C-alpha cells in the first residue's frame, strides 16, 4: 500500500503572466506506516506537494495515485481513495464551524455516508483518542475552548474519518511546549497503534528530528534531499543552511562541545543521548 507521485509537475495559473511552476517533475512513494517530515522554506513548493498527494490539487503533468487509483479521477473509486487521506491544515482551530464539539467531529463521518450509530461510535472514539472527555465537551461550543483544545477537536474531526494517511500542515505552530507534546503524543499514537502513515509539513527542525523517520527537503519545486532525519542533519548541514533551513539545537550544542575538545560520537540526535554521552565522558552517573 502506498501513495505515489510519478513525474508530477504542478503549475499555478498556467497561460497567464502569473504562471508559476511550483513542482518540477517529482517522483515519490510513501508507504503506509511511514512517518515523513517535509521541510522547505516558504514558497519552496512543499504545500503544493502535499496537496497533490491528497488529491486537493491535480498534477499539471504526471500522475498522483493511492494504491494504483488515480486521485484526479471522478469515479467512486477515486473518491473513496481521497477519503482515505486525512488532512489537518495549518491552524485547524480556525476551521471549526459547528455549534457543538460533537457536530463538528461528526461532520466528516457523516459525509462518508456512515449511519447514526457508526458516526456516534466514531465521534466517541475520536474524542477519547485526543483526550477530550465526552460528557464534558461533546455539547459545548468549540469556540468556548482554549486554542490547544480547539486544535484537538479539529484533529479529532480528521481522526474520526479513520484515514490511512494523515497529512499535518505545521501541527505545532503557535503551540507552547506542553501543548506541542500533547498534540504529538496523539499523532504518535495514531502512527504506532493504528499504523496511520503521517506526512508532516513543518518549519520546526526539532519536530522533524524528534518524530519523523524520513525527511524530505523541498527546494525550488524539487525534492533535493530524501533521507533519515538523523543522517540528513549530520551530513547535509551546509546544504540545509543554504536553502534557509537549520539543524536542531542538540546538533548545535554537540558541535559547540566538540569544538572545546569534548570527544562525542557522531550520532547524537537527541538530548537524552547527548546527556548520557557527556556523563560517560566525565565519569558521572
Amino acid at each position, binding site marked *: 500500500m502506498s501513495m505515489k507521485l510519478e513525474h508530477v509537475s504542478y503549475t499555478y495559473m498556467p497561460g497567464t503572466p502569473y504562471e508559476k511552476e511550483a513542482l518540477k517533475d517529482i517522483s515519490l512513494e510513501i508507504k503506509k506506516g511511514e512517518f515523513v517530515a517535509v521541510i522547505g522554506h516558504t514558497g519552496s513548493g512543499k504545500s503544493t506537494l502535499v496537496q497533490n498527494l491528497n488529491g486537493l490539487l491535480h498534477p499539471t503533468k504526471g500522475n498522483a495515485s493511492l494504491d494504483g487509483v488515480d486521485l484526479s479521477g471522478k469515479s467512486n473509486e477515486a473518491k473513496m481513495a481521497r477519503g482515505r487521506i486525512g488532512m489537518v491544515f495549518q491552524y485547524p482551530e480556525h476551521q471549526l464551524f459547528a455549534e457543538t464539539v460533537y457536530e463538528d467531529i461528526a461532520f466528516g463521518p457523516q459525509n462518508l455516508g456512515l449511519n447514526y450509530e457508526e458516526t456516534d461510535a466514531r465521534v466517541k472514539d475520536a474524542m477519547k483518542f485526543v483526550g477530550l472527555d465526552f460528557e464534558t465537551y461533546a455539547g459545548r461550543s468549540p469556540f468556548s475552548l482554549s486554542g490547544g483544545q480547539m486544535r484537538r477537536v479539529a484533529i479529532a474531526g480528521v481522526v474520526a474519518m479513520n484515514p490511512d494517511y494523515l497529512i499535518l500542515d505545521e501541527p505545532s505552530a*503557535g503551540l507552547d511546549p506542553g501543548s506541542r507534546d500533547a498534540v504529538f503524543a496523539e499523532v504518535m499514537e495514531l502512527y504506532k497503534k493504528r499504523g496511520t502513515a503521517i506526512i508532516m509539513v513543518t518549519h520546526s527542525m526539532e519536530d522533524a528530528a524528534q518524530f519523523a523517520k524520513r525527511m524530505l527537503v523541498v527546494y525550488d519545486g524539487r525534492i533535493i534531499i530524501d533521507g533519515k532525519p538523523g543522517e540528513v542533519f549530520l551530513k547535509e548541514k551546509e546544504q540545509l543552511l543554504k536553502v534557509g533551513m537549520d539543524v536542531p539545537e542538540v546538533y548545535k550544542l554537540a558541535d559547540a562541545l566538540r569544538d572545546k575538545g569534548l570527544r562525542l560520537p557522531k550520532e547524537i540526535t537527541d538530548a537524552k543521548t*547527548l546527556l548520557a554521552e557527556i556523563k560517560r565522558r566525565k565519569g558521572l552517573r
Partner: protein
Amino acid sequence: MEPVIEVQGLTHVYIDAENTKVTALDNIDLQIMPGEFVAVIGANGSGKSTLARHLNALLLPSEGHVKIKGMDTMEEDNLWDIRQTVGMVFQNPDNQIVAAIVEEDVAFGPENIGVLPEEIRTRVDDALKAVDMTAYRTHAPHLLSGGQKQRIAIAGTLALGSECIVLDEPTAMLDPKGRKEILSTMLRLNKEKKITVVYITHFMVEAMLADRVVVMSEGKIRFQGTPREVFSRVEELERLGLEAPLAAKVAFELRKSGMKLPKEIITNEELAAAFG
C-alpha cells in the same frame, strides 16, 4: 526617565461563550522603559496576547490602568496618539497586508493619519531601509516570503512613527530563515533606533536575546528577570508548561549528577566553555 509602558493593577475579565466569567489578566503590574527589549513567554492561554492588546488600547482594562508615555488608554482622546506610539505586529503576515505594492502598504498608516505626501515619501523610504526591504519596494507583497512580509508589517509601524513595537508571536508561522530575519531586524531596530520592543514568543532561543524576560501563567506575571536569571530556573519553567533552552537543561541535569558548573549557563557556548 518616564516608562514607555506602565501597567498598573491591570485586570481583564470577559464573559465566554458558556456565559462564565474568565479572568484573562489578573492584577498585572509591569513597567517598560524606553529602549528596553522585553520578551514575554507563557503557555497558551496564559494571557500574553491579551496583555499585548492592552498595550495599544485594542482592549481596555476591566480594572487598573495602562499608560503609554503617561497617556491612559481609558481616555478616548488619547487613542490616536497611543496607537501611533505603540505599533503592533501579529502572528499571521497575510492578515496584515492591505495594499498590492510594498511601499503602498507601508504608506497606508501615515496616509490614514494625514501625514503630508512629501513626508510620507521620506517615512516610507526610511522604514523600508530600516527593515532592509528597499530592494522590494515596488514588489507585490503576496509574492514575498513570510519573513519579508513580517518585515513589511514592521516597516508599517515604523512609518507611523512608533517608538515601541509589540510583536505577538511574529515568527510562529515562519521558516528558520524567516525567524532569524525577524529577530535580527528587531535587535537592530532596538539597538540602532532605540525602538522599545515587546516580543511575545514560544521560541526560547529568541527570548534569550532580550534584555528582560517576563514569564506569564494564568493571567499573572510569575517571575521576570534577565534571560540568565529566568532560564536557569529549569524546573519552574517546566511546571508552567515552558521549556528552558537546551544548554540550560543539560547543565541542570549535569549538576544533578554532581558536575560542578557555573550557575547560570543558558547558551551552548557557555556550556561548551565549561568543558574547555
